[in-house]
């Protein structure tokens, strides 16, 4: 499966890019993908973030559909 991954705010600062394409041979849950991303970017281990899949915030157990848009969202600061 091929996913688009978006990084925002302090997460984008840590990854050094706002967007990447992510390819995986296996089906992934949100938790699986988080583990894989943390392997690639160990600096994210001590950053707080939530994961949105197709603009919905979901928890680790959720299976990610093919071609999903996934976003790593640091704490919100609107207002």
């Amino acid at each position, binding site marked *: 499966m091929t996913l688009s991954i978006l990084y*925002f*705010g*302090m997460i984008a600062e840590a990854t050094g890019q706002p967007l990447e394409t992510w390819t995986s041979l296996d089906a992934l849950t949100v938790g699986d993908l988080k583990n894989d991303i943390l392997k690639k970017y160990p600096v994210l281990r001590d950053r707080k973030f939530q994961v949105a899949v197709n603009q919905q915030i979901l928890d680790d157990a959720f299976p990610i559909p093919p071609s999903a848009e996934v*976003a790593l969202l640091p704490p*919100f600061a*609107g*207002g």
Partner: protein
Amino acid sequence: MSHTPKKVFVEGPISPQFVADSIAKHQSKTSIGAHNIFLGQIRADEKEGGQVTGIEYTAYPEMAESVFHQIREAAFGKFELTCMHIYHSLGVVPTGEISLFVFVSSPHRRATFEALEFIVEEIKAKVPIFGKELIGEKGEFAWKENR
């Protein structure tokens, strides 16, 4: 009840004149008895490294617009509102300037108090907007987090 999604994001600060123009546009709606307005203004907090000079806002715009729309629909469902407007800045907003403008109107005051607080709390908690506090004169910054 469904309302057309409206444009929320504006580039840079929201001016007092913009607020006045919004108020004036509601004077022809003579079923309105009460308006309630919330304005978020950037504070010059003291941080390690100096004073906050502004906040640079970014967002996940598609998701943010969708969450703003859900908040609008929920507020119209819960409270007896005639009108509701939400504006939020993107980009740099210097200290002392306004980054959030929420405006609700109703025949009666009670609905405006309850709705305004609900909407502001929902925005702070649920909308993917990110803020970089710009500190001092040397380019330092810190990431803001709502509580």
